[in-house]
């Protein structure tokens, strides 16, 4: 391991050489930043992983059933497990997707589940990302470079090889393919995750396309090459949000979508990864109900726990939140990327009062959670090992079967006082080792 840590700087240099960056907009200006890599890995033991894997598969399977149910029968609402109001008032619920069943009944093909590990090493789910979760490419390339930097580390430790993500992605795309090529659709190089779009296209053999390369004709989606030849698209792994994918169905102002794409999708002529409308299942308010969904759809006890969560929408929870605001973390259900998250402990008296009023006034807009005492992970900072908050984004791929990628993106905060680990807020990342024995 020491030789791996000794090569941290070289690995970061190689990551820079390969353009491993993410984009960020500051003051209306686009900048590309390197994503700092810390070579001390997160290590998940074989036993821990077995539980994690089973829990993640269970959760994603239930979420996929929930999505199908919500856009068809709505039995879970009829049975009073999830309140109607919570579903239909969510910005993630898209009435345009009503009755549409995607190829092979799979809605969330690539799920990014964010977890933290408490000091007793038990795992808590922080949130589900079922729309366009990103981040798999970073540990994928970091592992490749780490193995080059310190072969003995990987020879001496029983670490599951994680360099199969693109194959898993390819299998998932192929499984739902409706006949035609696999395409990864990017909004372009000024998107925050552009490196990932292009890297996954390179590795999976999919064609990277922008909306101008794609068009709909006779209810089929086509890719147009420069000779004017049209190739049918069977799977579209789109890396743009639902609201922009089809200006004829969603946001009419969108210039990065494909007109009439939703017609092709409704007709079952293209698989869209992930399915439009998934936002209803990763709504921070719906998160509260996921353990109930597992019991409801699978008749199983949830293996992984949610972080203790309160819904101010319910009177009893609201009272608790207002009484204990100074010890809780409040999240705006409409925000992502570490935004819209406030800690009661950081607020002064005036701010606490302001938030209490806001929560009372817009109770559906927020959830509140107990602050989990994360298990800190060590990072190297100026030559010293120091503990920092870190989370794990696990990737679950649903194709013929549901599989967990034996790795994940471990993000850490570089600020010793911060719980926010998002790259857009200055965090770094680590490799995630799953031990094979």
């Amino acid at each position, binding site marked *: 391991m020491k030789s791996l840590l000794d090569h941290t700087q070289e690995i970061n240099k190689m990551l820079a050489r390969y*353009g491993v960056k993410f984009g960020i907009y500051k003051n209306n200006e686009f900048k590309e930043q390197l994503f700092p890599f810390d070579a001390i890995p997160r290590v998940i033991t074989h036993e821990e992983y077995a539980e994690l894997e089973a829990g993640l598969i269970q959760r994603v399977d239930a979420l996929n059933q929930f999505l199908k149910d919500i856009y068809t029968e709505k039995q879970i609402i009829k049975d009073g497990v999830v309140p109607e109001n919570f579903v239909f008032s969510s910005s993630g619920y898209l009435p345009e997707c009503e009755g549409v069943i995607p190829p092979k009944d799979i809605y969330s093909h690539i799920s990014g589940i964010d977890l933290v590990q408490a000091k007793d090493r038990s795992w808590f789910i922080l949130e589900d990302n079922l729309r366009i979760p990103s981040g798999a490419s970073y540990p994928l390339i970091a592992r490749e470079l780490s193995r080059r930097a310190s072969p003995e580390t990987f020879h001496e430790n029983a670490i599951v090889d994680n360099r199969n993500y693109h194959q898993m992605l390819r299998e998932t795309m192929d499984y739902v393919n409706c006949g035609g090529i696999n395409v990864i659709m990017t909004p372009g190089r000024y998107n925050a995750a552009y490196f990932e779009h292009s890297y996954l296209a*390179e590795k999976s053999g999919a064609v990277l396309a922008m909306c101008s*390369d794609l068009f709909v004709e006779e209810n089929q989606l086509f890719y147009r090459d420069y000779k004017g030849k049209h190739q049918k698209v069977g799977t579209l792994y789109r890396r743009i949000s639902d609201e922009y994918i089809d200006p004829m169905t969603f946001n009419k102002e969108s210039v990065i979508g494909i007109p009439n794409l939703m017609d092709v999708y409704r007709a079952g002529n293209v698989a869209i990864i992930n399915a439009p409308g998934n936002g209803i299942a990763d709504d921070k308010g719906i998160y509260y109900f996921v353990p109930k969904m597992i019991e409801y759809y699978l008749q199983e006890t949830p293996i992984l726990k949610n972080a203790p969560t309160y819904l101010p929408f319910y009177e009893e929870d609201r009272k608790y939140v207002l009484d204990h605001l100074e010890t809780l973390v409040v999240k705006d259900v409409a925000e992502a990327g570490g935004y819209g998250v406030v800690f009661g402990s950081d607020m002064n008296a005036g701010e606490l009062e302001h938030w209490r009023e806001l929560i009372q006034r817009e109770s559906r807009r927020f959830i509140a959670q107990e602050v989990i005492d994360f298990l800190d992970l060590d990072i190297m900072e100026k030559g010293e090992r120091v503990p920092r908050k870190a989370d794990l984004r696990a990737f679950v791929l649903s194709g013929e079967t549901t599989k967990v990628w034996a790795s994940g993106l471990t993000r850490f905060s570089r600020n010793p006082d911060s719980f926010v680990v998002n790259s857009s807020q200055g965090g770094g990342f680590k490799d995630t080792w799953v031990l094979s024995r």
Partner: protein
Amino acid sequence: MGAISLEKVEHLYWLGRYTERVFTTLQKFFEVYDNMIDEGIQGKVYPKYCECLSIPNIYTSNKDFAMRYLFDKKNPDSLAGNMERAYDNGIVLREELSSEVLSYLQMSLDLLASAAGSGAPLFTLQPLVDDIYAFWGCVDDEVDNRECRNIMKVGRRVERLDLYLRLSYGKEETGKELSKLIHRIKETDIRFNEEKLERVIEIVNQDEIAKEERREAVRLVGEIVEVM
């Protein structure tokens, strides 16, 4: 892979052109810089060079030229500016070219940034020449799609011929580049204007090229490939 969109063809072509622009003008700069050593502060070598390349002479001295022409990214005609544009065209082609190929563009860009202000640019920029050679070697080795390689190389040959004509290279060198361009164009499926190509051949094959005809050839070279 097989499908290349029109937009990607443009990026491939311009990646070839900008990479070559950096390469050839850097080689020429080495010569110009060497000549400037024997001049006073206000030289005559660089204004002539700017005129040949049809770039505005915004420089105030030999030293100012050496620094800003090489390293000033805000100057669209600088080497650093052209390298940025090569990178901009390359970065959207990762799955066609591979991360390995792109890494040479990144290294070239990083090298120009770290060498900025160097007092000995002939030394510090030598690795840039090496990186560009390696870039093309890597393209041949890593890029499986022959059409992609050929389109880039058409861009490369167009640019080199353009620069050789502007910089008044001799008939033999220019003719050799023209032959390479013709060979490369015929290897691709991109559309080209035969009439314009014929006229360029006619001009280049003359022993002495008149100033007006040289200008005409430069203009026509940029118009031979029609897909852009």
